[in-house]
């Protein structure tokens, strides 16, 4: 009897942590196949490369838990990067601390504006999230091209690149630093987003609204306000992602972030956040981001043609969704 119970528990543990198992298996596989995979430099690269996706996914987790979607994040990325770049051009002699503050303020400001538009339309005008964010995605991409005339915004000072491109803590193998600054920044932001969702009353309300809007409303939760705030958070994360990319490239690109929403949604779903709403976790979405980053980098190291990367990522997402559905059926 006890053995049987243990088996059930192990099975549950495995199925609930499938993304972690997939990640470990991928790391082991790539580690065996490539001498470089576990090198400090490569691990540092993987962490750095998953940062943009991690920022987007941490915001999207809130919206998806609500049962909604936000496909405008890629365009918010572009607008935030451009605004930050134009702001950076105004201060050619700025120092690193000022540059960091400027980038963060620009990212949050653009995110607030874009999130306000999405939030008001979805929460107070009851526009379907997919349609609303599809419209804002198109409009904001247009804004990015209108502002820049289709040209990148360049000529920024080197201090502008500190947040996105610099590394600290030099080692013998990496004299220019082993730890990307962007990784530290992302960890702080993602930790904040995780705590906000899992440890606060606001977070509980997000889950309640995602599980059942009517019950949440009858319980005294302001459903519209929660919906509005989640969309604002999603756009603010996209804004921060945009300024990180602008900093990394040391310029603002009107085409930046195109298609990023799909990888961010995929990471969130891989991390176990249900597209039907009501369940999910920012921390687990990070495992989803790691799976995608590991596949991309690992396959590059093994010189596997880039077309295959999309095939493999697509298959893994399908697998994650099928397992998620199977689990839900099991519970029911």
């Amino acid at each position, binding site marked *: 009897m006890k053995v049987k119970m243990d088996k059930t528990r192990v099975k549950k543990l495995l199925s*609930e*942590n499938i993304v*972690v198992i997939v*990640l*470990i298996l991928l*790391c082991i596989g790539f*580690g065996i196949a490539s001498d*470089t995979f*576990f*090198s*400090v*430099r*490569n*691990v540092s*690269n993987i962490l*750095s*490369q998953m940062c*943009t996706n991690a920022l987007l996914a941490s915001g999207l987790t809130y919206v998806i838990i609500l049962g909604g979607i936000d496909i405008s994040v890629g365009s918010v990325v572009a607008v935030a990067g451009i605004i930050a770049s134009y702001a950076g051009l105004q201060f050619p002699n700025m120092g*690193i601390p000022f540059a960091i503050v400027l980038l963060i303020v620009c990212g949050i400001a653009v995110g607030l504006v874009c999130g306000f538009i999405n939030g008001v339309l979805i929460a107070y005008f009851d526009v379907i999230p997919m349609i609303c964010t599809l419209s804002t995605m198109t409009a904001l991409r247009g804004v990015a091209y209108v502002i820049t005339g*289709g*040209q*990148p915004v*360049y000529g920024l000072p*080197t*201090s502008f*690149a*500190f947040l996105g*491109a*610099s*590394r*600290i803590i*030099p*080692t*013998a*193998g*990496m*004299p*220019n*630093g082993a730890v990307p*600054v962007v990784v530290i920044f992302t960890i702080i932001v993602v930790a904040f987003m995780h705590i906000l969702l899992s440890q606060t009353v606001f977070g509980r309300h997000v889950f309640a609204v995602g599980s059942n809007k009517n019950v949440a409303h009858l319980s005294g939760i302001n459903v519209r306000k929660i919906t509005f705030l989640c969309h604002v958070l999603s756009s603010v994360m996209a804004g921060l992602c945009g300024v990180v990319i602008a900093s*990394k*490239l*040391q*310029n603002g*690109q*009107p*085409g*930046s972030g*195109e298609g990023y929403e799909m990888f961010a949604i995929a990471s969130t779903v891989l991390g176990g956040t249900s597209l039907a709403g009501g369940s999910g*976790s920012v*921390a*687990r979405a990070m495992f989803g981001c790691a799976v995608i980053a590991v596949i*991309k*980098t690992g396959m*590059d*190291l093994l*010189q596997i*043609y*880039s*077309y295959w990367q999309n095939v493999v990522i697509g298959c893994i997402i399908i697998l994650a969704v099928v397992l998620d559905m199977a689990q839900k059926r099991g519970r029911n």
Partner: protein
Amino acid sequence: MKQKLVAVMLTLAMTAALAACGSKAEAPAEAPAETEAPAEAEAEAPEAEAPEAEEPAAGGADLASLKFGFVVGSFEHTFYQLIGQGIEEECKAQGLADTQFSVLDASLDPVIATQKVETLTADGCNAIALACNDAAGVKPAIENADKDGVAMFTFDCTSESDAINCFVGTDNYQGGVLGGQELLRLSEEGDTVAIIGYPTASSCLDRENGAVDTVGDQRNLLSGYDYKGDANEAQKIMENILTTNPEVKAVFCVGDPAATGALASIKAAGSDCKIIGFDGNPESKEAILDAENGKYWVSEVSQNPKEIGATIVREMISFMTEGTVTDKQIFIAPYIITAENAAE
């Protein structure tokens, strides 16, 4: 609780793996042992506290100990596939083993290009060549890799950085001049001609500028379009041009995907507008020789992508083993293909 436990276990596993592999990472890639004065690497590091930049090695290396990395624009474009083929064929011809070179795809995105350069650096490449489809966007990646001791090269399109040791590409402006001359040849004074451009790609902007400067006021010129490297977008642009200017006599497309899109629109509209493509991909030659498509697609400014790929490989090897390159900038001259010489 269980999730936290698994997360902690994963972190420990990764940390252990990192510690185990630390020695591997700390040993610098087997760069040429005794090196001579390398290219300048004076670009200021954003991190002021970083130690003195490690400088790329030049000359004196044993070819068998070297590793080369290449980042092409996009494998979705025949042109870059051909550059990739040229690189692979030349690497093999030079006696490099399959493990000594990698060719990766940047998907025409400066963020992805930056990531690929980082991946190749982590993989221990001693020299990396990339196509800078976004000149400003990849500059930090080039300078960071240079600071990490990787010798940097560019092909097809370049970036303004002192870290670049050699650039091999087509003289795009000259190619644009040839395209402009073809526009003039295929039309008469007072006629309307058009250019479908892609201004965010610096190479395509040079081509457009070359054609615009050549045509000047000699024709009624329609330009300023952006087909974004997408044939479907070019098809829509051509449709709009034909709607507003049905009398257009010839169109210069700054890339073959644009010419493919324009061809579809011109045929659908029943126009007799002539197409001048740019790239010299196999599909352009096929179209020019085709009885039906050849009525419209009559001319092509051809690059030599395989030769670009082969030349950059030779220059990288020369730099790493002998410390020299033929020239800081090497241009492979474009030429015109018409029905008369397409079969060659």
